[in-house]
Each structure stands twice: as C-alpha cells, then as structure tokens.
C-alpha cells in the first residue's frame, strides 16, 4: 500500500510554543521497547510537518540482550529543524529513557539543561541494579542539571488501554505509543499518519490497533493538559525550505540497493548480486532479495570468496556481477578482484566499512578501508573507487558504479559505512524513467575478434559473452598478449599490459565530473577535504565557521580513485589543506603522495561519527585560533 501525504505550508499554532531552529531527540529503551519503531514514526510525523531531518538508529550488537541491561539498550536519534540538517546531531535536547539502563547509557549525550522523559514504572530496584545504579537517579538529585519529566508511563499506558481487553503484557507493549503521543505534543506533531499506520499494521487485530491509538492519544492528552515542566508550552520548529516534490525517507542500504538496480536497468543488464552475510552490509542483500521482479538475481554464497567469484562468473556470462561485504570480507575477495582486473570484467564491490582491524567493532562505523580499496591487492592492480557521502547519495553512487564498471570493463569498489547504511534522510524521489540510459554493447563482430581488442578511447576491452558463435575465446588470470589475447610471458608485453590497465583506470577521470568546492571560496585559506559519510558533520561545521567569518572551504571527494583531474590544482589554491577522516589518515596519505601537498589530518577512530563541534574545534586550532 502506498500512502501519500502532503506537507501543508505553515499552519499557525495558537499555543505560545517556544520556537527552536532545530532539536535533537534520542529515544532509548530496552531492545524490546520498540524504540526503532517509535523513532521511525516520529521521523515520518516530522517530515510531514515540513522539517528537514536526519536520523540514526543505534542498536546493540547482541541479538537478544538480557532485558534491562546496559548492553541491551536500543536507541534512535533524530535531528530536525528549519535549516538544512546534515547530521543526526552531536548531542540531544531531549532524552526519552524507557528504563534505568537507557538513562545510564545515554545521559552523557544529553545537553546541559536538556530534558529527560523517564518512565518511573520501570525504575524498579531490580532494574536500577541491572543498570548499575546504587540509588534512584530520579530521586537522589543527581539529575538536577537537567529538566526531568518523570512519569509512570507503564501505569498510565495500562490505564489508557484498559477497555481494550489486552493481556497485561500486550497492554504494556503500548507504552512506546503512549510516549510517542507525549512527544508529539511537545513538538506539535500530528498523530494522523501514525494512527493510519497502526490501523494498517494491525488490520487483522483491530483490538491492538485501537489500544495503540488509545495509548497514543492518552500520552498526547497528558502532555497537553498537565503542566509537565514549569511554564513549558511545547516547542515549535519552523518549516525548512525544501525543494518541492515527492519525498520518502531512505536508508543508505535501501538507496544503494535501488541505485544498483537502477544502474543495471540503465545498462540493460541482469543484476547478479552475490554476497555472504556480514554486518553491516547484509541489509543491501536483504533489500535486493525482495527485488527479483526487477531483474535482480541474488545469490547467498558459501563464503566471501565464492561470492566474489560468482559475481565474476556472472559478468563473464553477460550479467552485472556485484558482490557486497564489509572490510574483512573484502580482504577475502582480494584475489578474485585481481582476476577481474586481469580479465578486465565489470564488477561492483560494495564495502560497507566498519571499525577494525579483524572483527573490530562490527556495528560501529569507520572509514578505514581506503588503503584496502585503492592499494590493497597484490601486484599493480588499479581499480576505480567511489565513496557515497550520505544515505540518499548511495542511489547516485550505485548508478555511477555500474556505469563505470561496464563502460571501462573494470571492477569498481564502492565505499559506504555502517553509519550511512543504517541512517535515514528524506529523499526527493528521482524519476528513473527520465535518466540517461547507458546500454551495454556486447561484442558482436566476429571478424578479427580477439578478447582483448580495446576501445581506442576508453581502453576497455570488448565484452564477448558465451553463447555467440564465432566469438569463442579463452581468458584467465595469466597475462595475455596485447594483440591476440593469448597467454603471454613476453617481458615487453607485460609492461604494455600493465601500462594499459593503469591508463584505462586513469582515463576514468576524463569521464567523471571535475571536483567542485561544496561550500566556501574556491581559493583561500583552508580547504577541508572530506570523503564518504563525514559529509554531514563537515558540511555543517564549515557552514558554522563561514557564518563566524572564518575563511574555510569544503571539498568532498566522491571519486576516490582515480581522483578528479582538477583536484591537485584546486588544492594548490589554499594555504592549508585539512583532511578530517574516521581513520588514522588514509586519504591524507593519498593526497600527500599524489600532490605533494602538506595536508594535515583531523582523525578520529572511536567507532562514532564526527561531531560538528569537534570538527569546528579542530579547524579553529589549525587556523591558529
């Protein structure tokens, strides 16, 4: 079922609400408290209210952590406001703590004098002990620096759904909706989208739908009618200026799956997506597994190597072979990647980066596979590397990866990360039918055919697919003769083939857009060069610093390899080049080595994205105060 709502322009509200430019809310509770779902509904209501927004779910690594423990806390953060929202927010204005463990884990992220909404019903001695509290923080004065709304949400929920005849357990499950209703009032959100959703979701159990709607309304009514904080009349957040059109919320994993599918449709190829489950990359496999009707074949291989090899087999047979993993899995695919480079077959390798080395912190984010992508193979084996900068950007990068892979007959590595994959943002839905197609031309000419016949312009070899009489040929990982495609150990030929592979990849830069300056002057004091998912915080930090009157510019690189042709020249126009990265300085090394530029890094390897504040601080320090 599709639901289309319309964002109405500026509905005046009578209540003297406090106007905020933006706000950050973090919903935190036990894994079973339904926080992701609550966050998702709040996101929708916020989008319908006309705010810009960004969200990030933060859930435990454990599949079913014991109830009430700190490692079982599941959180959802949303930043929304009237200006361009680029990140899910550094710290939050409102913390919803459904139990003591949630308070314990999340309190450090709450702003000074921020608001806590806590369910006292779950602050039992037992739960407090499980969370590691000696006393009850709601009562011992330790939260005096904050504004605390302590309500027995559990009991209030039970009261509100009494008439619907649910079991105690089922009734208590409605408390996230009660809380949501309460928060809706605080920010002046409408309930209709959520009640519609509940009625669809529980169409077969109308009593559950009715109870949840009752809980939602009760929470809303309590917030509206009681003096919840001294003089507090709720918040109002003006609408953002948003381009007109049809929107949806999209996660990076969804956008990547759809982008790759769109890319294959534009190339007029069957997609063969071969993967082995790994966090945080699996969600792309899950999305694509539902898309068989869109020309998508998915294959869950026995391991990472088999996944890469099956994708190569798919491309050999005339499909678009795609394989997906995270850093450790991509390491296993390395040899296969070499085969795709040597046989010059199109291949897309998606790497949802995570914190490492080794198993590292699978659910935490990092940008530390840049070396692996650009350099991480035996021998001289260049490939194309692209990086997506936001959830919605994954769609465009997915298309571009397929375009380059097929046009240049090369593997393309696409870098995203755990943050982009799970985070969501509003997306102006593109019209795929209007996009420029780039259909693949398989080799058809049998005269003078050999498999390494190259396009003089792109240097791509011809793609001859089994099934065509007269084009039978043999290829493999052994070096080929430049002029016949046969096995060759000739020294001069190996030099020529190595040079050809290198020149082909370098030539991709002639076919991709020049690097733009995202924000700030094109020549100036400091270029802040980012790539990948740090786009949000860098972008906001640079906005703020420019507003302060500091002379900084933001350059954000999508084409990691080959780098944009004009990038060296662009960087030479700045006194300083600063490279913030969630690694120990990998793009930094690449830029220093490529351009002999004295770039400096701002590096963070904690498994957490940059905050805007720490970037501003880092930049100020390098600007000399």
């Amino acid at each position, binding site marked *: 079922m599709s639901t289309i709502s319309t964002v109405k322009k500026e509905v005046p509200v009578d209540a003297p609400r406090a106007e905020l430019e933006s706000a950050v809310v973090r919903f935190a509770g036990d894994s079973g408290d339904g926080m992701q779902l609550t966050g998702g509904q709040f996101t929708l209501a916020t989008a319908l209210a006309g705010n810009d927004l960004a969200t990030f779910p933060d859930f435990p690594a454990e599949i079913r952590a014991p109830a009430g423990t700190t490692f079982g806390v599941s959180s959802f953060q949303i930043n929304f406001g009237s200006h361009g929202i680029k990140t899910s927010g550094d710290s939050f204005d409102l913390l919803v703590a459904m139990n003591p463990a949630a308070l314990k884990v999340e309190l450090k992220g709450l702003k000074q004098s921020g608001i806590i909404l806590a369910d006292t019903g779950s602050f039992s001695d037992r739960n407090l002990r499980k969370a590691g509290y000696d006393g009850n923080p709601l009562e011992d004065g330790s939260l005096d620096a904050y504004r605390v709304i302590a309500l027995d949400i559990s009991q209030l929920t039970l009261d509100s759904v009494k008439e619907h005849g649910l079991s105690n357990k089922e009734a208590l499950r409605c408390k996230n909706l009660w809380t949501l209703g309460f928060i809706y009032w605080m920010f002046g959100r409408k309930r209709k989208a959520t009640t519609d959703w509940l009625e669809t979701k529980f169409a077969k159990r109308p009593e559950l739908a009715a109870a949840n709607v009752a809980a939602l309304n009760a929470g809303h009514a309590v917030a509206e009618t009681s003096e919840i904080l001294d003089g507090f009349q709720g918040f109002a957040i003006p609408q953002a200026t948003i381009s007109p059109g049809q*929107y949806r919320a999209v996660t990076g994993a969804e956008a990547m799956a759809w982008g790759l599918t769109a890319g294959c449709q534009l190339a007029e190829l069957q997609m063969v997506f071969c993967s082995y489950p790994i966090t945080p990359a699996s969600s792309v496999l899950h999305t694509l597994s539902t898309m068989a009707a869109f020309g998508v074949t998915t294959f869950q291989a026995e391991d990472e190597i088999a996944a890469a090899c099956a994708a190569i087999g798919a491309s050999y047979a005339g*499909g678009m072979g795609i394989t997906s993993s995270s850093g450790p899995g991509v390491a296993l695919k390395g*040899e296969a990647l070499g085969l795709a480079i040597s046989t010059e077959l199109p291949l897309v390798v998606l790497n949802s980066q995570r914190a490492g080395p080794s198993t590292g912190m699978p659910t935490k984010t990092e940008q530390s596979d840049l070396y692996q992508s650009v350099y991480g193979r035996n021998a001289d084996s260049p490939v194309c590397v692209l990086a997506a900068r936001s959830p919605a950007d994954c769609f465009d990068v997915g298309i571009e990866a397929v375009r380059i892979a097929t046009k240049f007959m090369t593997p393309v590595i696409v870098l995203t990360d755990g943050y982009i994959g799970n985070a969501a943002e509003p997306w102006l839905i593109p019209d795929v039918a209007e996009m420029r197609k780039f259909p693949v031309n398989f080799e058809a000419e049998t005269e003078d055919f050999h498999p390494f016949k190259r396009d003089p312009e792109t240097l791509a070899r011809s793609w001859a697919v089994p099934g065509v009489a007269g084009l039978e040929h043999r290829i493999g990982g052994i070096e080929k003769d430049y002029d016949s495609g046969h096995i060759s150990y000739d020294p001069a030929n190996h030099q020529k083939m190595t040079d050809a592979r290198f020149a082909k990849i370098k030539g991709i830069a002639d076919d991709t857009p020049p690097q733009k300056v995202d924000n700030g002057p094109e020549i100036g004091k400091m270029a802040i060069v980012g790539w990948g998912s740090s786009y949000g915080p860098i972008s906001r930090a640079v906005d703020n610093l420019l507003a302060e009157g500091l002379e900084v510019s933001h350059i954000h690189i999508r084409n990691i390899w080959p780098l944009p042709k004009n990038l060296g020249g662009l960087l030479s126009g700045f006194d300083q080049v600063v490279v913030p990265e969630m690694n120990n300085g990998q793009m930094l090394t690449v830029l220093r080595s490529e351009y002999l530029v004295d770039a400096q890094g701002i590096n963070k390897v904690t498994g957490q994205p940059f905050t805007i504040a720490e970037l501003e601080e880092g930049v100020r320090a390098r600007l000399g105060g």
Partner: protein
Amino acid sequence: MNVVAKPEALKPKDYASDQEVRWCPGCGDYAILRAVQKALADIGAKKEKTVFVSGIGCAARFPYYLSTYGFHTIHGRAPSIATGIKITNPELDVWIVSGDGDSLSIGGNHLLHLIRRNVDVQFLLFNNEIYGLTKGQYSPTSRAGTRSPSTPLGSVDKPISPVAFALGAGARFIARGIDSMQKKLPDVFARAHAHKGASFVEIYQNCIVYNDGVFSNFTEKDVVANRQIHLEHGKPMIFGAENQFGLRVADGKLALEVVSIGEDGITEDDIVVHDETDRIMAHMLAEMQGADRPVAIGVLYCDPMASYEEGMQGLQARAEKQAMTHDLNELLRRGHTWTVEDA
C-alpha cells in the same frame, strides 16, 4: 521437397584450439583431453554454448586447448565462478576441470557447495594424488606416508576419497574413470553430460613426473581385469579375466565382498545387480579401496533431482507473479511518501 542441409557434424579435432598443448610428454592429461574432445563430438556439443572453467594446476590449463569458450580462473574457485555463470545464463553448458589439490584442498568448500546445490555442470576431477604444477608436494588424496619435497619423511595425514566426499556432499551423479581407458572414458563423460544437476567424475590420472605409477596396482595391463570392476546399471557386478569374480553384500555387514563364482556353491544369482539409483550401494562402491577388492569404474550413482538453476527459476517465476509492481519508479514511490508543495 525442401532439402535441409544437415550441418556438418563436428569431429573431435574441431574442438581443439590452435594453442600448443604444454603438458609434460606422457602426462595423463593428454588422454583425458582426447576423451573430452571425443565426448563433445559424440554428444554434438555446440561450441558457442559450451564453457570450460578451471582453477589452478596442471589440469587447469585444459580450457586453453579447447575451441569452446573457456575461463581459466584462480585456485580452487572454479565451482564458484561456474555457479555465477549458470545462475546468469542457465542455457550454457558448463564443464569444470580440476585437480585433487584445486578441488579438495584450496577449493574443497566450493566443491562441497556446488554439489550440495546441484548446479547443473560437469565436474571433472583429475586425481593424480600429487601437486604437479608446484613440483611434487603431497596432496589431499596422497596416501599416508607419501614422500614429497614437503614431506621428506612421508606424509602423516590420511587421504580423502573424492567420490566419498562427493556422496557426502549430496551428489546425484558420481562416476569414475581412468586416463588410459580411451574407449570408455568418452562414454562416462557423455553420461555425466546427460545428467541434469552436478555430475561428479573422478579420473585417475597418472603424473609421469612426480607420481608415476601410483595407480599401477589396478591399472597395469596384467591386473586390470582382476583389480577393476566396470559397472553397468542392471547388470550383476562380475569381474575378472574369466568373469570368475563377483560382488555380494557380506553377511551381517554393510559392505561388499568379493566372491568366486562356482566356488562354495556361489552362482551368478548370488551376485549383486548394480543399481545406479541406490545411494547405499554407491557408498559401498565408493568404499572399495585396498588390495582385497576391485576399484569401481563407471557410473557409481545416478539419481537426478531438480537442479539449482531450476529452483532459482522457480523462485524467479514466483517472485514475478507475486510482485505488486515490476516498475522501479513505482517501487520507489511505495510505502509512505510525502509531497512538498511549491511555497
């Protein structure tokens, strides 16, 4: 009356490529190559529809010597690449050529899953019980005690039986041949080809340089008749120079034993009839190793079931039928969307 000119049938030599064959003189691979070329001619294989995929090793050079499509890939991964080819274009006729190291050491996992999934390919395992291309180290099929450059005092690990491995992985077609049996080998390949699903064929192949004569205890001319049993579906399992031996299920055991026909009142009626579809029998035949029983040659087991590709195509058809839309644009607009109006 219209006369339709029948296209000239291809001969074995038509399946040879223009590349010079570079195996050691006397290598068993030459004989297998000839047998494959003959089998391709016998079955009337279309060159353009045929793909030979290999990994790494002496055997892996095979695709270069055929005039079909060929893909010489990386060590142990031919099954994975072949699987990718088949799920993309199930119409292609895919053969995998591999050795004992390629398929049972570095690529053991992929072979297991190729068989388990029942991908419709022919898998030819050239077993010479040694690493040839890397100059003579012992392999996973080498017998315990094999002396090699990496095991100068003899190897400790016990060998794996390729056919028992394939059975364990769920193979629905298992056959065995010997490089030197030029007459019968093409027929074994033709049977493998006719079978829908993963067809597993082990070929004992003599490595003249590093393991010469390792199979001589059942391949030397003077012992062939008494040390090999050539299986035929529906026929009693009789062997020997004068058809004097037969196999029967040992009393109180689940194993085959050799009996002499005409002795102790044993007649041909006591001999077990080979039933290719009997999985337990296949296990017993696979287990026949060592000095007291003959080596089973021919089709040990053949009991087809739906191939992986058929399963995948079935899923695809179901998905297309169930799909509420086939239009990506429509999919992107499903679920909850909102429209921002012009200010």
